[in-house]
C-alpha cells in the first residue's frame, strides 16, 4: 500500500495540473478490459489476492484485463447510481442489500451462471435466492454474506456462571440485568447507523413474529400483538441491561465500546473479533460469537448479501459475463474466500466444511446463521418503498422511541402511519 500510494503521489505531482486526474476517463485501451467495481475489503489480503493472483490468471488465460476499481466501504451505492445514470463507468460491480431489486432492469440476467454454480457447488442457500432473484431471474451472483452475530465476553459471563450463550432473548435479558449490576452492561445500537441497529432490531422483531408489510407488498401489518411484544421486550432490555448512550450510537460505537471494555455483549459483524485479535489480543481471547437468541417465533438473522452484478448497458457485457462465470467457478472462488479467512460467508453449500472455517472457529456461527437470514423488511418485497422505509429509519426509530419511554401503542401508531404513507394504502 505504501509504495503504491507514494508512486501515486509522485505520478500526480509530476503530471501537475494537466495530469490524468483532470481529464474524464477516455475510451478503453486497445485490448479488452473489464472494469470491476468493488469496495475496499475489510481484510486487505482479499483485495491483494484478486489483484495479484486472480486478475493476472484471467488475463493469462483469455487475454482480457480485469481492472479492479476500489471504492471505500459504503460508497459503492453512490458510485453505482452515478454509473447507472450516466450509462458508463464500470462493467461488473459489487452490489448489496436492496439494490439488486432497485436496479433490476439495469442488471444483466445471470441465471445461467447461478444455476451452473448451484449444480456444481452444492446448491445455494435460500437466502441467496432471496437476495438476488428478482421475478424469477438472477440479477446478481451472490458472493458472500457479511453476517451479524452476537458478540459476548466469555470471562464476564463466566463470572456469573454462564458458560454458553443464552438460547432465548428472555434468558439473555436475565444475564444482562446481572451484568449491568456488575458494571458490565450490554450495548446494542439504537441510533442512526446502518448495520448494527438493523442487525439486532429486525431479528428481534421477526423472532416475535412481527412484520412491517406482508409479502404482497400492500398490507401494512406492523400493528400487531407480536410487534407489541417485541417492543415491550426491547424496552425492558434497554432499561435494565444497557445505558443511555446507545440511543445515539452509530455503527463504530460498539466497536469502540468493546475495545474500551465498556460492554459485555453486542451484535456486530466479524470486525470486533478481527480487530481485537490484531490490536487487543487480551480482549480477543475472551471474545466469542454466537447466533442470535430465539424468540417465541424462532431465530432470525439479518442478511447482508454481497453480490456481483453486470450492468446490462455495458458494451463489454459479454466479456464481463465470461469473466463472472470464470470467477464463480470453484477453482477461483474457493481460494478467494480462503484469503479472507472466514470473514465472507459463502452462499454455496460446498463450502460448509471448507478448511477456512478452522482458521477462526469462532466464526462458524456465521455460516450457520445463513439458514435463518433475511433482508431488512422481510417479508415485504424489496422495492423502492421498502428502501424508503429503511432510509427513513422507520422501524429503528419505532424501537428507539419506545425505549425512551413512549408508549408501545403510540410508537406503533406512528410507524404504521409512516408505512402507510410510504406504501400508499388507505
Amino acid at each position, binding site marked *: 500500500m505504501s509504495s503504491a500510494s507514494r508512486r501515486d503521489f509522485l505520478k500526480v505531482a509530476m503530471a501537475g495540473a494537466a495530469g490524468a486526474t483532470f481529464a474524464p476517463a477516455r475510451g478503453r485501451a486497445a485490448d479488452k478490459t473489464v472494469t470491476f467495481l468493488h469496495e475496499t475489503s475489510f481484510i486487505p489480503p482479499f483485495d491483494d489476492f484478486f489483484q495479484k493472483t486472480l486478475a493476472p490468471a484471467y488475463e493469462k488465460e483469455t487475454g482480457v484485463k480485469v481492472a479492479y476499481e476500489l471504492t471505500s466501504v459504503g460508497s459503492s451505492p453512490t458510485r453505482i447510481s452515478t454509473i447507472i445514470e450516466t450509462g458508463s463507468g464500470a462493467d461488473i460491480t459489487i452490489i448489496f442489500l436492496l439494490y439488486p431489486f432497485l436496479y433490476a432492469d439495469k442488471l444483466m440476467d445471470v441465471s445461467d451462471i447461478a444455476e451452473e454454480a448451484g449444480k456444481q457447488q452444492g446448491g445455494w442457500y435460500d437466502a441467496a435466492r432471496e437476495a438476488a432473484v428478482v421475478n424469477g431471474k438472477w440479477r446478481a451472483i451472490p458472493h458472500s454474506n457479511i453476517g451479524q452475530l452476537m458478540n459476548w465476553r466469555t470471562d464476564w459471563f463466566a463470572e456469573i456462571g454462564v458458560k454458553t450463550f443464552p438460547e432465548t432473548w428472555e434468558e439473555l435479558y436475565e444475564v444482562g440485568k446481572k451484568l449491568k449490576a456488575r458494571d458490565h452492561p450490554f450495548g446494542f445500537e439504537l*441510533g*442512526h447507523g446502518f448495520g448494527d441497529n438493523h442487525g439486532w432490531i429486525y431479528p428481534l422483531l421477526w423472532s416475535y413474529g412481527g412484520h412491517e408489510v406482508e409479502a404482497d407488498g400492500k398490507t401494512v401489518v406492523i400493528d400487531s400483538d407480536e410487534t407489541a411484544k417485541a417492543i415491550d421486550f426491547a424496552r425492558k432490555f434497554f432499561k435494565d441491561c444497557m445505558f443511555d*448512550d446507545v440511543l445515539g450510537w*452509530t455503527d463504530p460505537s460498539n466497536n469502540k465500546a468493546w475495545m474500551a471494555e465498556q460492554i459485555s455483549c453486542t451484535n456486530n459483524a466479524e470486525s470486533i473479533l478481527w480487530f481485537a485479535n490484531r490490536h487487543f489480543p487480551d480482549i480477543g481471547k475472551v471474545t466469542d460469537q454466537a447466533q442470535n437468541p430465539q424468540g417465541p417465533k424462532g431465530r432470525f438473522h439479518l442478511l447482508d448479501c454481497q453480490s456481483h452484478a453486470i450492468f446490462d448497458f455495458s458494451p463489454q457485457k459479454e466479456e464481463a459475463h465470461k469473466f463472472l462465470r470464470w470467477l464463480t467457478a470453484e477453482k477461483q472462488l474457493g481460494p478467494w474466500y480462503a484469503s479472507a479467512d472466514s470473514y465472507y460467508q459463502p452462499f454455496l453449500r460446498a463450502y460448509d466444511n471448507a478448511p477456512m472455517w478452522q482458521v477462526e472457529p469462532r466464526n462458524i456461527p456465521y455460516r450457520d446463521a445463513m439458514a435463518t437470514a433475511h433482508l431488512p423488511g422481510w417479508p415485504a418485497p424489496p422495492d*423502492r418503498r421498502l428502501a424508503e422505509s429503511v432510509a427513513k429509519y422507520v422501524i429503528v426509530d419505532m424501537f428507539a*422511541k419506545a425505549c425512551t419511554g413512549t408508549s408501545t401503542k403510540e410508537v406503533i401508531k*406512528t410507524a404504521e402511519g409512516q408505512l402507510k404513507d410510504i406504501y400508499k394504502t388507505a
Partner: protein
Amino acid sequence: MSIRTESLITLARPRRRDVSFAGWLDREAVFSWLMMALPLLFLAALVGYPLVYGVLLSLEDRSVGHTGHFVGFKNFITDFHDPVFWRVAANTFVYTIAATLLKMVGGLGLALAMNQDFWMKNLIRALLLLPFIVPTVLSTVAWMWMLDPAFSVVNRILIGLGVPKPGPSWLGTPLLAMFSIIMINTWRGLPFYGITLLAGLQTVPPELYEAATIDGASGWQRFRFVTLPLLKPIILIVTLFSVIFTFADFQLVYVLTHGGPQNATNLFATYAFDIGMGAGQLGLGASVALMMLPALALLIVGLTLYMRRA
C-alpha cells in the same frame, strides 16, 4: 476629495461621442454587461440550471435509474404528511437560531476582549481561528470521542461531583444531542464571528468614545449607544452568512449522529441526502431540499427587518 483643475476644465468642455468600436466598448452599460457575462453565464449554468432542474425533479416521481413521471405536488404532500419532515424542519430552525445567537453574543464578547493591546495578540488572533480552519468533518470526529461518556472530561467531573455513572449521554439523549450539535457549531463559528466583529470594533473612532465619556456616559452606555450602532452593519452581514451556512449544515450531523437519536438532530440537508442517495428517491429528496429555500428566505427577511428596525 480634491478636484484637479484639468478635470474641471474637461468637465466644462462638451464631450464628443466616441463612435469607434473601442468607444462602444467603453460605454458603461456595454462594458458592464460584457464584464459580467462570464460570471453570469457560469452561475446560470452551474447554479441556475441545477436549481431549475432541482425544482423539476421535486415535481417528478424519479428514482435512480428510472425516468421520472410528472406528479405535480405529490412529493410535497408526502413531505407534509411525514412527521419526520416536520421534526427535521423544527430541528433546523432551532439549531440555526440557537447557534447564531450564541455565536453573536459570544463573538461580541470575544471581540471586546480582544480589542485591547496585549502581548502576542496577533498570534492569539490566528490561533483563535483554528476551529474555523480545521475541516469540519475532522473536528467533528474529535468531538465524537470527547462526547463519549466513557471518555468525556465533563462526565468525569460530574461523576466526581456525585452524578451517577456513566453521566449524561451527550449523543444519546435527544435534548442533549441537539445541545451538542449547537455547541459544536458554536465552537466552530464563534471565533470567526469574533474576529470579524473585532475588525469592526477597530474602525470605531476613539473620539466618539471620548465625547461620550465627557458627556457622562457609563461603560455600558458607551457600548450601547456608540459601539453597537456602528457595529450593526457588520453584525448583520456576518449573521447573514452564518445563518445561511448553519441552516444548510450537513457535515456536522452526518458524521456525528447521522440524524439520531430518533431524528433529534436530523436536518434538512441530512434528511434530503438519506432519501436521495440512500433510498435512491431523487424526486422526493429534491422536494425536501427545496423546502429549505422558503424557510431560509423567511429567516433572512425576518433577520433583515429586525436589524433595520432596531
